[in-house]
Protein backbone atom coordinates (compact mmCIF):
# COMPACT_ATOMS: atom_id res chain seq x y z
CA UNK A 1 0.00 0.00 0.00
CA UNK A 2 1.41 3.39 -0.90
CA UNK A 3 1.75 6.31 1.50
CA UNK A 4 -0.50 8.44 -0.70
CA UNK A 5 1.80 11.47 -0.79
CA UNK A 6 5.49 12.10 -0.93
CA UNK A 7 7.11 10.86 2.27
CA UNK A 8 8.97 13.18 4.63
CA UNK A 9 12.79 13.25 4.40
CA UNK A 10 12.94 11.26 7.66
CA UNK A 11 10.59 8.58 6.31
CA UNK A 12 12.63 8.36 3.13
CA UNK A 13 15.80 8.06 5.22
CA UNK A 14 14.30 5.16 7.21
CA UNK A 15 13.21 3.38 4.02
CA UNK A 16 16.63 3.88 2.45
CA UNK A 17 18.41 2.63 5.58
CA UNK A 18 16.28 -0.50 5.58
CA UNK A 19 16.84 -0.96 1.84
CA UNK A 20 20.62 -0.78 2.23
CA UNK A 21 20.78 -4.15 3.93
CA UNK A 22 18.24 -5.92 1.77
CA UNK A 23 16.73 -8.81 3.67
CA UNK A 24 18.58 -8.43 6.98
CA UNK A 25 16.64 -7.36 10.05
CA UNK A 26 17.40 -4.09 11.84
CA UNK A 27 16.72 -2.92 15.40
CA UNK A 28 14.90 0.33 16.12
CA UNK A 29 17.74 1.81 18.16
CA UNK A 30 20.23 0.77 15.49
CA UNK A 31 18.19 2.76 12.96
CA UNK A 32 18.11 5.76 15.33
CA UNK A 33 21.91 5.67 15.56
CA UNK A 34 22.49 5.13 11.85
CA UNK A 35 20.21 7.99 10.87
CA UNK A 36 20.99 10.22 13.86
CA UNK A 37 17.27 10.50 14.55
CA UNK A 38 15.49 10.31 17.90
CA UNK A 39 13.38 7.32 18.92
CA UNK A 40 10.37 9.63 19.00
CA UNK A 41 10.87 10.24 15.28
CA UNK A 42 11.86 6.75 14.14
CA UNK A 43 9.20 4.73 15.96
CA UNK A 44 6.15 6.61 14.65
CA UNK A 45 7.63 6.22 11.15
CA UNK A 46 8.19 2.49 11.65
CA UNK A 47 4.65 2.10 13.02
CA UNK A 48 3.19 3.90 10.01
CA UNK A 49 5.29 1.96 7.50
CA UNK A 50 4.45 -1.36 9.17
CA UNK A 51 0.74 -0.56 9.24
CA UNK A 52 0.90 0.19 5.53
CA UNK A 53 2.71 -3.04 4.77
CA UNK A 54 5.93 -1.39 3.64
CA UNK A 55 7.97 -2.75 6.54
CA UNK A 56 7.95 -6.28 7.97
CA UNK A 57 8.32 -6.74 11.70
CA UNK A 58 9.39 -9.69 13.80
CA UNK A 59 10.59 -10.52 17.29
CA UNK A 60 14.18 -11.55 17.95
CA UNK A 61 14.34 -15.32 18.41
CA UNK A 62 17.34 -15.75 20.67
CA UNK A 63 17.44 -12.91 23.16
CA UNK A 64 20.30 -12.89 25.67
CA UNK A 65 19.40 -13.91 29.21
CA UNK A 66 18.03 -11.09 31.29
CA UNK A 67 16.48 -8.99 28.59
CA UNK A 68 13.34 -9.31 26.50
CA UNK A 69 13.48 -10.12 22.76
CA UNK A 70 13.88 -7.03 20.62
CA UNK A 71 11.67 -6.01 17.74
CA UNK A 72 13.18 -6.25 14.26
CA UNK A 73 12.38 -4.46 11.04
CA UNK A 74 13.10 -4.95 7.35
CA UNK A 75 11.69 -3.65 4.10
CA UNK A 76 8.85 -5.77 2.74
CA UNK A 77 8.51 -6.56 -1.00
CA UNK A 78 5.81 -3.86 -1.11
CA UNK A 79 8.28 -1.49 0.54
CA UNK A 80 10.90 -2.31 -2.08
CA UNK A 81 8.34 -1.62 -4.83
CA UNK A 82 7.43 1.63 -3.13
CA UNK A 83 11.09 2.66 -3.00
CA UNK A 84 11.50 1.77 -6.69
CA UNK A 85 8.48 3.97 -7.42
CA UNK A 86 10.06 6.83 -5.47
CA UNK A 87 13.32 6.38 -7.38
CA UNK A 88 11.48 6.42 -10.71
CA UNK A 89 9.55 9.52 -9.67
CA UNK A 90 12.73 11.26 -8.56
CA UNK A 91 14.42 10.16 -11.79
CA UNK A 92 11.67 11.53 -14.03
CA UNK A 93 11.57 14.79 -12.05
CA UNK A 94 15.34 15.10 -12.45
CA UNK A 95 14.99 14.29 -16.17
CA UNK A 96 12.27 16.93 -16.61
CA UNK A 97 14.40 19.53 -14.80
CA UNK A 98 17.40 18.74 -17.02
CA UNK A 99 15.24 18.97 -20.15
CA UNK A 100 13.84 22.34 -19.04
CA UNK A 101 17.34 23.60 -18.34
CA UNK A 102 18.65 22.48 -21.73
CA UNK A 103 15.63 24.04 -23.50
CA UNK A 104 16.43 27.48 -22.02
CA UNK A 105 18.30 30.00 -24.21
CA UNK A 106 22.02 29.88 -23.69
CA UNK A 107 22.15 33.54 -22.72
CA UNK A 108 20.30 34.31 -19.54
CA UNK A 109 19.68 37.97 -20.48
CA UNK A 110 16.16 37.73 -21.86
CA UNK A 111 14.77 40.37 -19.57
CA UNK A 112 15.52 43.81 -20.07
Amino acid at each position, binding site marked *: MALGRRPSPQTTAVILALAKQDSSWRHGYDLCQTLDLKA*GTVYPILIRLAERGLVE*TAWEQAAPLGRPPRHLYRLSPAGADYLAGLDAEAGSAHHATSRARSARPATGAAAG
Partner: protein
Amino acid sequence: MSRRPQDGAERLLDLATAGLPAHRRAWGAAMRAELAAIDDPAVRRRFARSAARAAFGRGLGLRLGLGLGTGGLVAAVTVTASRLQLPHGGPGVLPVTVPVPGFLLLLVTLLATGKTRSLRFGLETGILALAAGLAALWTVLAIEGQVWMDRLGVFILDADPPRGAVDRSDVILDLFTTGMWVGHLVLWVPAVLVGATLGALVGGQQAPTDVQGSPAQ
Protein backbone atom coordinates in the same frame (compact mmCIF):
# COMPACT_ATOMS: atom_id res chain seq x y z
CA MET B 1 18.90 -14.69 35.11
CA SER B 2 20.36 -11.25 35.96
CA ARG B 3 18.17 -8.27 35.40
CA ARG B 4 19.13 -4.60 35.52
CA PRO B 5 17.48 -2.76 38.47
CA GLN B 6 14.68 -0.49 37.25
CA ASP B 7 15.89 3.06 36.63
CA GLY B 8 14.10 6.32 35.82
CA ALA B 9 14.26 5.71 32.07
CA GLU B 10 12.55 2.35 32.39
CA ARG B 11 9.92 3.72 34.77
CA LEU B 12 9.17 6.60 32.41
CA LEU B 13 8.77 4.34 29.39
CA ASP B 14 6.70 1.82 31.37
CA LEU B 15 4.37 4.63 32.39
CA ALA B 16 4.14 6.09 28.89
CA THR B 17 3.41 2.76 27.23
CA ALA B 18 1.04 1.38 29.89
CA GLY B 19 -2.50 1.23 28.56
CA LEU B 20 -1.64 1.95 24.94
CA PRO B 21 -4.48 1.10 22.52
CA ALA B 22 -4.53 -2.61 21.68
CA HIS B 23 -3.16 -2.24 18.17
CA ARG B 24 -0.19 -0.27 19.52
CA ARG B 25 0.54 -2.39 22.57
CA ALA B 26 3.20 -4.46 20.82
CA TRP B 27 4.98 -1.25 19.82
CA GLY B 28 5.17 -0.31 23.49
CA ALA B 29 6.76 -3.69 24.19
CA ALA B 30 9.14 -3.12 21.28
CA MET B 31 10.31 0.23 22.67
CA ARG B 32 10.72 -1.22 26.18
CA ALA B 33 12.74 -4.15 24.79
CA GLU B 34 14.94 -1.73 22.87
CA LEU B 35 15.55 0.29 26.02
CA ALA B 36 16.55 -2.90 27.83
CA ALA B 37 19.31 -3.40 25.25
CA ILE B 38 20.85 0.03 25.88
CA ASP B 39 23.44 0.25 28.66
CA ASP B 40 24.64 3.85 28.76
CA PRO B 41 22.49 5.69 31.37
CA ALA B 42 22.50 9.00 29.44
CA VAL B 43 21.53 7.27 26.18
CA ARG B 44 18.82 5.32 28.04
CA ARG B 45 17.35 8.56 29.40
CA ARG B 46 17.36 10.20 25.96
CA PHE B 47 15.82 7.15 24.32
CA ALA B 48 13.13 6.82 27.01
CA ARG B 49 12.19 10.52 26.89
CA SER B 50 11.88 10.53 23.11
CA ALA B 51 10.04 7.19 22.92
CA ALA B 52 7.68 8.30 25.72
CA ARG B 53 6.81 11.42 23.74
CA ALA B 54 6.04 9.23 20.73
CA ALA B 55 3.89 6.89 22.85
CA PHE B 56 1.94 9.78 24.40
CA GLY B 57 1.52 11.49 21.06
CA ARG B 58 -0.13 8.52 19.34
CA GLY B 59 -3.88 9.00 19.24
CA LEU B 60 -3.66 12.59 20.45
CA GLY B 61 -5.65 13.75 17.43
CA LEU B 62 -8.41 11.27 18.15
CA ARG B 63 -8.53 12.26 21.83
CA LEU B 64 -8.62 15.95 20.98
CA GLY B 65 -11.16 15.43 18.19
CA LEU B 66 -13.56 13.46 20.39
CA GLY B 67 -13.03 15.77 23.36
CA LEU B 68 -13.50 19.02 21.51
CA GLY B 69 -16.29 17.52 19.40
CA THR B 70 -18.16 16.71 22.60
CA GLY B 71 -17.63 20.28 23.79
CA GLY B 72 -19.12 21.54 20.53
CA LEU B 73 -22.13 19.24 20.87
CA VAL B 74 -22.73 20.30 24.47
CA ALA B 75 -22.67 23.94 23.35
CA ALA B 76 -25.13 23.17 20.54
CA VAL B 77 -27.49 21.28 22.87
CA THR B 78 -27.43 24.11 25.41
CA VAL B 79 -28.07 26.83 22.85
CA THR B 80 -30.93 24.80 21.34
CA ALA B 81 -32.52 24.18 24.76
CA SER B 82 -32.24 27.86 25.60
CA ARG B 83 -33.63 29.12 22.31
CA LEU B 84 -36.56 26.67 22.31
CA GLN B 85 -37.67 27.81 25.76
CA LEU B 86 -36.94 31.51 25.43
CA PRO B 87 -40.09 32.63 23.50
CA HIS B 88 -42.59 31.28 26.03
CA GLY B 89 -40.51 30.75 29.15
CA GLY B 90 -39.81 27.32 30.54
CA PRO B 91 -38.34 25.35 33.44
CA GLY B 92 -34.80 26.46 32.58
CA VAL B 93 -32.15 24.49 30.75
CA LEU B 94 -31.00 22.39 33.73
CA PRO B 95 -33.25 19.40 32.83
CA VAL B 96 -31.46 19.29 29.47
CA THR B 97 -27.87 20.26 30.32
CA VAL B 98 -27.48 17.58 32.97
CA PRO B 99 -28.69 14.40 31.22
CA VAL B 100 -28.02 15.06 27.51
CA PRO B 101 -24.30 15.86 27.82
CA GLY B 102 -24.09 13.06 30.39
CA PHE B 103 -25.34 10.64 27.76
CA LEU B 104 -22.94 12.11 25.18
CA LEU B 105 -20.02 11.64 27.58
CA LEU B 106 -21.00 8.04 28.20
CA LEU B 107 -21.19 7.42 24.46
CA VAL B 108 -17.85 9.09 23.67
CA THR B 109 -16.00 7.29 26.46
CA LEU B 110 -17.56 3.97 25.50
CA LEU B 111 -16.58 4.52 21.87
CA ALA B 112 -13.02 5.60 22.69
CA THR B 113 -12.43 2.71 25.11
CA GLY B 114 -14.14 0.06 23.00
CA LYS B 115 -12.52 1.09 19.74
CA THR B 116 -8.99 1.21 21.13
CA ARG B 117 -9.47 -1.51 23.78
CA SER B 118 -7.59 0.77 26.16
CA LEU B 119 -9.19 1.86 29.43
CA ARG B 120 -6.57 4.57 29.85
CA PHE B 121 -7.20 5.99 26.39
CA GLY B 122 -10.97 5.94 27.02
CA LEU B 123 -10.67 7.64 30.40
CA GLU B 124 -8.32 10.30 29.06
CA THR B 125 -10.72 10.98 26.20
CA GLY B 126 -13.69 11.04 28.59
CA ILE B 127 -11.97 13.46 30.99
CA LEU B 128 -10.98 15.73 28.11
CA ALA B 129 -14.55 15.60 26.78
CA LEU B 130 -15.90 16.39 30.27
CA ALA B 131 -13.60 19.40 30.62
CA ALA B 132 -14.49 20.62 27.12
CA GLY B 133 -18.19 20.06 27.86
CA LEU B 134 -18.02 22.09 31.08
CA ALA B 135 -16.14 24.91 29.36
CA ALA B 136 -18.67 24.95 26.51
CA LEU B 137 -21.60 24.85 28.93
CA TRP B 138 -20.31 27.74 31.03
CA THR B 139 -19.56 29.84 27.97
CA VAL B 140 -23.02 29.35 26.48
CA LEU B 141 -24.82 29.80 29.80
CA ALA B 142 -22.92 33.01 30.54
CA ILE B 143 -24.10 34.48 27.24
CA GLU B 144 -27.60 33.02 27.13
CA GLY B 145 -28.10 33.75 30.85
CA GLN B 146 -27.91 37.47 30.13
CA VAL B 147 -30.58 37.11 27.45
CA TRP B 148 -32.87 35.19 29.81
CA MET B 149 -32.44 37.80 32.54
CA ASP B 150 -33.07 40.66 30.11
CA ARG B 151 -36.14 39.14 28.47
CA LEU B 152 -37.72 36.95 31.15
CA GLY B 153 -36.17 38.29 34.37
CA VAL B 154 -35.12 34.80 35.53
CA PHE B 155 -31.94 32.73 35.80
CA ILE B 156 -31.38 30.45 32.81
CA LEU B 157 -30.61 27.24 34.70
CA ASP B 158 -33.79 26.84 36.73
CA ALA B 159 -35.92 29.81 35.61
CA ASP B 160 -35.94 31.17 39.18
CA PRO B 161 -36.47 34.93 39.55
CA PRO B 162 -33.78 36.76 41.52
CA ARG B 163 -34.54 37.84 45.07
CA GLY B 164 -33.49 41.41 44.42
CA ALA B 165 -31.89 43.52 41.77
CA VAL B 166 -29.19 41.71 39.81
CA ASP B 167 -26.54 42.86 37.39
CA ARG B 168 -24.59 41.02 34.70
CA SER B 169 -21.96 39.68 37.08
CA ASP B 170 -24.66 38.11 39.31
CA VAL B 171 -26.00 36.22 36.30
CA ILE B 172 -22.54 34.81 35.57
CA LEU B 173 -21.71 34.09 39.22
CA ASP B 174 -24.94 32.09 39.52
CA LEU B 175 -23.41 29.58 37.11
CA PHE B 176 -20.56 28.91 39.52
CA THR B 177 -22.69 28.10 42.54
CA THR B 178 -22.26 24.72 44.19
CA GLY B 179 -25.57 23.52 42.78
CA MET B 180 -24.32 24.07 39.24
CA TRP B 181 -21.12 22.10 39.85
CA VAL B 182 -22.69 19.26 41.76
CA GLY B 183 -25.82 19.10 39.59
CA HIS B 184 -23.80 18.46 36.46
CA LEU B 185 -20.79 16.58 37.79
CA VAL B 186 -22.93 14.18 39.80
CA LEU B 187 -24.11 12.70 36.51
CA TRP B 188 -21.28 13.55 34.12
CA VAL B 189 -18.44 11.93 36.13
CA PRO B 190 -20.25 8.60 36.56
CA ALA B 191 -21.18 8.76 32.86
CA VAL B 192 -17.47 8.82 31.96
CA LEU B 193 -16.68 5.98 34.37
CA VAL B 194 -19.61 3.83 33.19
CA GLY B 195 -18.75 4.52 29.52
CA ALA B 196 -15.13 3.47 30.09
CA THR B 197 -16.19 0.32 31.94
CA LEU B 198 -18.72 -0.66 29.27
CA GLY B 199 -16.19 0.14 26.53
CA ALA B 200 -13.59 -2.06 28.21
CA LEU B 201 -16.12 -4.90 28.46
CA VAL B 202 -17.25 -4.54 24.84
CA GLY B 203 -13.73 -3.95 23.48
CA GLY B 204 -12.28 -6.80 25.51
CA GLN B 205 -14.44 -9.26 23.63
CA GLN B 206 -13.12 -8.29 20.21
CA ALA B 207 -10.27 -10.16 18.57
CA PRO B 208 -6.89 -8.48 18.98
CA THR B 209 -5.72 -6.60 15.91
CA ASP B 210 -1.98 -6.47 16.57
CA VAL B 211 0.07 -6.11 13.45
CA GLN B 212 3.26 -7.47 14.95
CA GLY B 213 4.94 -10.30 13.17
CA SER B 214 6.26 -13.74 13.78
CA PRO B 215 9.72 -14.62 15.11
CA ALA B 216 12.52 -13.59 12.78
CA GLN B 217 13.68 -16.26 10.35
